[in-house]
Every structure is written in C-alpha cells, then in structure tokens.
C-alpha cells in the first residue's frame, strides 16, 4: 500500500476526538452555561427583595392611617385602598379587612376591631402578600 497525502489525511480523520479534548470542551461549555444561568437569578432576587420592602412600606403607611380612625368609623368588611407606590409592584392589589376582635385576643366582651392590611403582588408567577394587623378598641388610644 502506498501512503499518499490523501491517505494520511483519511487516517487522521478516522482517529476521532480524544477524551481529553472532549472533557475540555464540555468543561468550558458547562462553565459558560453556569455563568449565564446565574445572571437572571441575581436580577430576580434583587427585585423580590425590593418589592417586599416596598409592600411592607405601603402596608405600614396604611396601617398608621387606619390607626387614627375611631372604633365607630370602622365597619366590618374588606375595602381596597390606593397608594402611589403600588405602581412599583407588578399586578398589585391592596386592601384592608375589619373584623370584630374575638377571644383570646379580646376578652370580657371588650369592644375592639382587628384591622388587617394586606398588600398582594405577583412576583414572576408567584403570588406574594404582606399582611400587617392592629387592634382598634372603643375608647382606646387617640379617641
């Protein structure tokens, strides 16, 4: 058999890829994929933290407002409220619920209402809420 240039080239192709080459390529691709995959999670974790902080802020503000109201002006039920910061939260809703205070929190027929402020929003598919509660009693503080 005569080894021509073409035959030599043919033989080189038939050797295939060595294990080391394969491992190196896989490792490089995996490292790249890992780096790229980490970016979106960073971004969403920043947003998640920011949004829950804003929601807490909105709820606190509304709770302080409701605390000023008298026992008599609070009627049981759920009401929506608005806040300028709600636009910073995706698909947000804000409401407060007034209920009669039951035992064991309120004993001896004490007249009091439990006010719960709830701010809800959607975090890329996940529903999130922040709830804050206070008790407003008849003849209590600020009345």
């Amino acid at each position: 058999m005569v080894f021509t240039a073409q035959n030599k080239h043919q033989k080189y192709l038939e050797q295939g890829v060595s294990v080391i080459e394969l491992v190196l390529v896989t490792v490089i691709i995996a490292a790249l994929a890992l780096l790229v995959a980490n970016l979106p999670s960073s971004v969403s974790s920043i947003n998640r933290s920011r949004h829950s902080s804003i929601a807490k802020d909105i709820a606190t503000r509304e709770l302080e407002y409701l605390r000023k109201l008298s026992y008599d002006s609070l009627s049981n039920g759920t009401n929506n409220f608005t806040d300028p910061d709600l636009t910073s939260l995706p698909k947000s809703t804000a409401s407060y619920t007034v209920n009669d205070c039951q035992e064991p929190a309120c004993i001896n027929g004490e007249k009091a209402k439990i006010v719960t402020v709830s701010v809800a929003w959607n975090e890329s598919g996940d529903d999130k809420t922040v709830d804050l509660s206070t008790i407003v009693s008849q003849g209590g503080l600020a009345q």
Partner: protein
Amino acid sequence: MKGFSLLEVIIVSAIGLVVGTFLISILVNSNGFFFKQGAVINEGVNINDTMDNLTSMIRQASAVATGYPEATPSFVTSSHVLVLKLASEGPTEIIPDTYDYVVFSTDPTNPNILRMQIFPDPQSSRKSTNQVLTTLLDNVQYKFYDKNGNQVTPVSASVVEVSLTVLAQTGQVSSQRTSKVSVTLRNM
C-alpha cells in the same frame, strides 16, 4: 511535521478573543450584580427597619419636646431632628409627670448616619440607648400636624409625618428610596 497556517492562527485567535471578551464581560457584570444586589437588599432592610423604630417610638410618645434637655437643649426639634417625650415606665405602670426622651438625629461627624438615643429619667426602667438606625441616610424630614391636619409647631403636634430617604451607592451607580408615613402620637 507541518505547523499551522496563518489563516488557522488568525481564526483561532479571533475565536479566542470573542470568547474571552464574552467571559470577562460576564464576570464583570455578575460581580456588579452581586454588589448591586447587596446594596438594594441592604437599602430595603435599612428603610423598613428605621421606619419601624421611628413609628413605634412616635406611637408611644406623649408629645414632641422642644429639645433635650428641656432647659438647655443640646438637641432641638426641627425639620431634621426629632425629640420625643415618652411617659417613664415604672415596675408595673407608667410614672405620672415623669418623662424619658428619645432623640432622632444625624451623627455630627457623618451626615449619612441616623441615630436614635434614649435618655431615660433616673426613676424609669427604660434602658438608655444610643443606636445607629441607618448608615445610608440621604435625608430625613419631620412635619408636625394637629388632629385636623393643619401644620403646627412641634410641641402642639398630635401627628408627625416622617419622610425618610436612603441612598445606596455601588461604585458609580446609586439607588435611592424614599418612604413617608404619618404617625399619630399616644393619647392625642
């Protein structure tokens, strides 16, 4: 034995350059993200925490004081300094006509530090405190209102409106957040 042709070397170095640039840009960006993430989370925690402290103290306060100490004040209530009068706590109930003072002021040496200082009456069981609330302070402003929402002098206030801005700086990039809340004083 044959070396690489010029074309092969050029192609390989071009690919190397593109991949290298890509890798370094990812590294730099994710490093930036890491710091930004830390800063934004820090900022959120700071603003919530500071507001919690401020609102809970205002809620407990009997009145806003002109300053502390009242005779020769070293802290005077203004739009940037808040001095609150809280009824002193005895072992079981509050002590009548005796007050503890809570001062919210910026640190004299560093305008980014907001401090809460509690000066209790000697009879009071409340602990003396000197606490840093935030190190990211950009601006804090207090406004004083009566029950009907008219702006009044600090001493006659029954509602204190607090507006707090924190600023987180990461290199060239800064991020700012403002929180505003109106809090009613105790027994007003």
